[in-house]
C-alpha cells in the first residue's frame, strides 16, 4: 500500500518535472528500483531519502526472510547469532573497504559491481528467468516482482555495514 502510494507520487513528480522538486523533499522521495542510477556499480543517492538505522540494519542482516546476509557472509560482530555462511567474503571491515555509495550499489544490485556475483540483487524487480511467487514454486503473479528488500531496509543495511571497521 505504502509502496503503491510512493510509486504514484514518483509518477506525479516525473510529470510535473523540475517544478515538483519542492514536493520531493516533503515526500522524502523514494527511488523505485527502475530509477536507481549505477555509476560503475556505485549508487550515491539514498534510495529512501531517510538516513539508515544501524539497529534496524542489523536485524535485516540476521533475519531469514529479510536480508539474511549471514547466510553467505561471516560477520564477527554478529557472532552471537549462529550459523554464518562461507559462500561470500567476510564482511568484517566492509565499512573501511567500501564507501557508502559502493555499499549501497552492492546491496541493491551486486552484479553492477561484480559481474558474475552469486549474490541476489536485493533492489531489482524484473529481468528474471522463470520468476516465481516467493517460495511457493508457482509462477509470479505480476510482471514485476516486489524487490527482496525495501529502499529503507537497504539504507539500514548500508548504515550497519558502515559500522564494520577492523
Amino acid at each position: 500500500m505504502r509502496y503503491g502510494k510512493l510509486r504514484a507520487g514518483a509518477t506525479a513528480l516525473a510529470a510535473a518535472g523540475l517544478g515538483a522538486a519542492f514536493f520531493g523533499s516533503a515526500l522524502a522521495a523514494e527511488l523505485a528500483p527502475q530509477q536507481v542510477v549505477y555509476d560503475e556499480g556505485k549508487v550515491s543517492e539514498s534510495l529512501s531519502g531517510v538516513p539508515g538505522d544501524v539497529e534496524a540494519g542489523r536485524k535485516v542482516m540476521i533475519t531469514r526472510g529479510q536480508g539474511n546476509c549471514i547466510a553467505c557472509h561471516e560477520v564477527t560482530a554478529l557472532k552471537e547469532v549462529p550459523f554464518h555462511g562461507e559462500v561470500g567474503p567476510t564482511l568484517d571491515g566492509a565499512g573501511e573497504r567500501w564507501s557508502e555509495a559502493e555499499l549501497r550499489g552492492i546491496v541493491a544490485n551486486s552484479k553492477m559491481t561484480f559481474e558474475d556475483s552469486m549474490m541476489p540483487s536485493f533492489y531489482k524487480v524484473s529481468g528474471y528467468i522463470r520468476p516465481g511467487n516467493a517460495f511457493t514454486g508457482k509462477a509470479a503473479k505480476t510482471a514485476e516482482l516486489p524487490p527482496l528488500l525495501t529502499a529503507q531496509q537497504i539504507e539500514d543495511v548500508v548504515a550497519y555495514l558502515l559500522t564494520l571497521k577492523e
Partner: protein
Amino acid sequence: MRSISLRILASVTALAVMGSLSAMAEELPELVINEDIEMVTRTKAPAHLENLDEIRSGWTFRTKETQAFQMDDFDNPGMIFVDQALDTWETVDGAAGKSCASCHEGPESMAGMRASMPKWNDDAGAVWTMEMYINDCRENRMQADAWGWKSQPMLNMNALISLQSRGMPVDVKIDGPAQSTWEKGKEMYYTRYGQLELSCANCHEQNYDNYIRADHLSQGQINGFPVYRLKQANLITSHNRFRGCIRDTRAETFSEGSPEFIALELYVSSRGNGLSVEAPSVRN
C-alpha cells in the same frame, strides 16, 4: 594402490602449499555397507566435467550420525520401503494376471539398471527414467494402472530395483541419441533461475563444501537416489529435490516427470559417472 600413493602425494603437496607442517592429513571416512560392500564415494571426475577434478557422493558431506544410517541395512530406514516393494514384486496386478516376478523372476535380474538410468529408449525415441520403464511394464505387460510418479508404490519399487545395482559404478550414456537431451540438461544446470538468480552450479559446483547458513553444500550428486530423506521421513526422487531447489530460488519450478527434469536427471546423473550407486542412501 596407485590411487592411494597419488592421494598421499596430493596430501603432501597440499600441506607444502599451506606451509603448515603440523597439520595432519585428515583421514577420510569410507563407506562400507554391512561391513561388506565397499562404495566409491570419491573419484576422478568424468572427462565431460570441465570444472571439477574430483566428484564426491553426498554421503561425504553429511554428519557422522547421518552417515552411520547408511552403513548397515538394519539402520537404514529406506530398507523398510524396499521390503514393501518385495511384496509388490510378487503380487499379481492388472488384467494380464501378471506380477513383476512373472517375467523377471527375482529382483536381482534388475542388476545394472539403476547404474545406466536415465537412458535412451529406442522404441520410444526418448530418454526414459526408471519410473517410465516401471509404468511401461505395468500398463503394457501387466495391463495394470500406471503408478503416479510420486506415489508410494512407485518410490518403493524404484528403490528395490535401484538396490540391485548398489555398489556398481554409475555409467550413464551421454552420447548418441541421448546427447541433445543431455545438452538441454546441462544448459539448465548453469541457468540462474528465479528472483534469487541461482543456478545448480552456483551452489553445487562453485561452493560445494561451503556452508549456506546451517546447510553444508554438497556437489548435488544423485547416485544415492531414491534417497531416504530424514527431513521427509520417506523415500524421495531426484526430481523431488530438483523441484525443491528451483522453488527455493524463488522461481516457478518444474514438476516431477517433466521433460525438463528428465533432461536434468540425465545431466546430473552423468556428473556422477564413476561413483557407486548407493540407493537407497540416507540424507538429511
